[in-house]
């Protein structure tokens, strides 16, 4: 066994969090779930916590966790011929019947494979005899089709019972996959043959009862759906060190670039009484000093003021911080912040996207900058110290003038509010299922020019804290999110060529692997038609889909 005194941050691997669930595996289906990043990041992910709690609610399932170990522990395991283990019972990964991964971003693909290899599980689905590796989260599963036995499309709360029933009833991998593939939401890539015919992706079923086209599954009644109340509370600091309380899922807006909206429609809310019960229980069971109200757009919650009043009444004497991370700028902004300040100082975050009003309206973003300045006086009185802005560049039709407006905007914001400003600039990536999924992405040189132009106009004298994007990284993100099945070979080659953790961002390694496999990534980025590697997923029947598409 590992001597934890010899590794950095041993707290990551102990698995003794408050409310941790440890079950004997005897007579149970052992399943390990993972968010393929370091403990501090993975433990901040709500989806993984929901799945962990949900599966452990079945008496005959023992669900445990594993995260990406630090590089030092990974080296230590390899050097001593040890296998990566689960946190709860320190069971080697290859002893679980199934291992599931929440892949909420494509950059984690390599980490996902690293965890498999460290756990002595064959990387390719075709090389695994009985073990089942599954994943969910990302919108387009095709780039990892070779590595997963099945991919879950949508929200797992809705499919968990059927998943467990099938694992109870059938014991062989073949039978399990067949049974799963007949149900909505369970996509078994090996049951479909994919070819390109006349520039269109064509899917042919290899198992005749498998579903086609596939449908994303969503929770019909969010108010009554499962939420983990026995909050798993780490004994060490994690990235988002607060308990998130989900108040709504989906978003009633339709910004053209937004993938989250496109993955989570329809828009659903929980009732105030339900949210208060959840918050009370989580606080009672965890003692967490910060709660965060989670949704894609908190301002759209139908009675946000009523909700805050109810929560403030509950928590005002308990010294509990409440944060509201996704507020829109409108008339109620100042009032909402005044309520929050009553509990604890917060900072203000605005997803402005662009400084140009005309471009912003083309993006479908409902945000009136004048409201922000009208509210400037009130903002000043709130004792806030910083304002954080999110900006995006690289949109089609974006002009140099649009970009140069950023400088003038920051100048004015600083002058009228006096706040210190953090700006995070990102490059637009046309993500699958977003309204602009068929928009082409500019070439690297053009993106670099745009970045330079923006940097040149940022006012120097205010010490504005800037996060600047890297064009290559965004292009890589676009490729990984838009690629087809052939790209599994590239991911596999990059993984094998990179012993360390740093290579995820190494363009040369990706470039070489694409070249070796005869893949021209530009075909993924400049797809002007309406047929994509992910077109076999048809969500058109889900309510809320229609008003987000142009056609």
């Amino acid at each position: 066994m590992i001597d934890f005194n010899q590794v950095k941050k041993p707290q990551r691997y102990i698995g003794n969090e408050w409310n941790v669930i440890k079950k004997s595996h005897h007579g149970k289906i052992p399943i390990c779930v993972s968010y393929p990043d370091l403990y501090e990041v993975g433990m901040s992910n709500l989806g993984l916590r929901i799945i962990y709690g949900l599966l452990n609610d079945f008496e005959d399932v023992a669900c445990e966790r594993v995260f990406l170990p630090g590089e030092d522990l990974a080296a230590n395991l390899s050097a001593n011929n040890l296998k990566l283990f689960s946190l709860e019972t320190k069971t080697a990964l290859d002893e679980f019947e199934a291992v599931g991964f929440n892949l909420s971003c494509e950059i984690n693909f390599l980490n996902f494979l690293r965890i498999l290899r460290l756990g002595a599980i064959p990387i390719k689905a075709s090389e695994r005899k009985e073990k089942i590796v599954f994943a969910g989260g990302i919108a387009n599963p095709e780039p990892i089709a070779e590595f997963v036995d099945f991919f879950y499309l949508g929200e797992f709360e809705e499919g968990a019972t059927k998943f467990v029933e099938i694992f109870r009833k059938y014991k062989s991998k073949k039978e399990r996959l067949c049974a799963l593939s007949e149900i909505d939401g369970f996509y078994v890539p090996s049951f479909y043959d994919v070819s390109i015919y006349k520039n269109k992706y064509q899917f042919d079923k290899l198992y005749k009862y498998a579903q086609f086209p596939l449908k994303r599954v969503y929770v019909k009644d969010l108010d009554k759906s499962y939420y983990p109340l026995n909050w798993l509370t780490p004994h060490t600091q994690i990235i988002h060190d607060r308990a998130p309380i989900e108040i709504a899922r989906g978003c009633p807006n339709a910004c053209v670039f937004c993938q989250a909206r496109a993955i989570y429609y329809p828009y659903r809310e929980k009732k105030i009484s339900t949210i208060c019960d959840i918050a009370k229980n989580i606080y009672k069971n965890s003692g967490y000093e910060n709660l965060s109200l989670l949704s894609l757009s908190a301002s759209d919650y139908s009675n946000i003021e009523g909700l805050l009043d109810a929560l403030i009444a509950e928590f005002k004497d308990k010294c509990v911080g409440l944060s509201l991370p996704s507020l829109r700028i409108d008339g109620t902004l100042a009032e909402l912040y005044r309520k929050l300040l009553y509990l604890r100082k917060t900072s203000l975050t605005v997803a402005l996207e662009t400084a140009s009003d005309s471009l912003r309206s083309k993006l479908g973003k409902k945000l009136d900058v004048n409201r922000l300045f009208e509210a400037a006086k009130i903002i000043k009185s709130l004792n806030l110290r910083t304002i954080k802005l999110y900006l995006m560049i690289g949109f089609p039709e974006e002009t140099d003038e649009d970009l140069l407006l950023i400088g003038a905007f920051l100048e004015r914001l600083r002058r009228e509010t006096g706040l210190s400003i953090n700006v995070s600039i990102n490059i637009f990536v046309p993500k699958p299922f977003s309204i602009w999924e068929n928009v082409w992405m500019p070439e690297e040189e053009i993106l670099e020019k745009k970045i330079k132009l923006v940097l040149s106009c940022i006012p120097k004298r205010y010490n504005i804290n800037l996060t600047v994007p890297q064009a290559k990284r965004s292009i890589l993100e676009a490729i990984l999110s838009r690629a087809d099945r052939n790209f599994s070979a590239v991911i596999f080659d990059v993984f094998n060529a990179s012993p360390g953790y740093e290579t995820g961002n190494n363009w040369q390694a990706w470039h070489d692997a694409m070249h070796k496999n005869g893949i021209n990534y530009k075909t993924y980025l400049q797809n002007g038609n309406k047929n994509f590697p992910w077109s076999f997923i048809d969500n058109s029947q889900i309510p809320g889909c229609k008003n987000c598409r142009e056609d």
Partner: protein
Amino acid sequence: MQIEKFALKATIEKNQDMVYFSQLDLVSILIRALKRAELPLYYTQGFRPHVKLSFGKALKVGAAGLEEVTFYFTQKTLPRELCEKLSPQMPRGLTIVEIK
């Protein structure tokens, strides 16, 4: 207005899995345990109130041993009452040895 505070000094034994947790971790572990125990906690009166705790000499990460911690309450709390309420909220590896 000055709120009266009542102090209790506890000796806590740190061993088993808890030896891997740092002094900084210990602060939030104890604060969360106190909050779960629903004790009448005394908060600092500053701009950003937080639970007041004071510590004796810190143990090094990896080492088992005794930690001295002083807790502060807004109401008179008996050592036995604190021990009864707090003990069930302590993770394995942190044991209250003495309170006075």
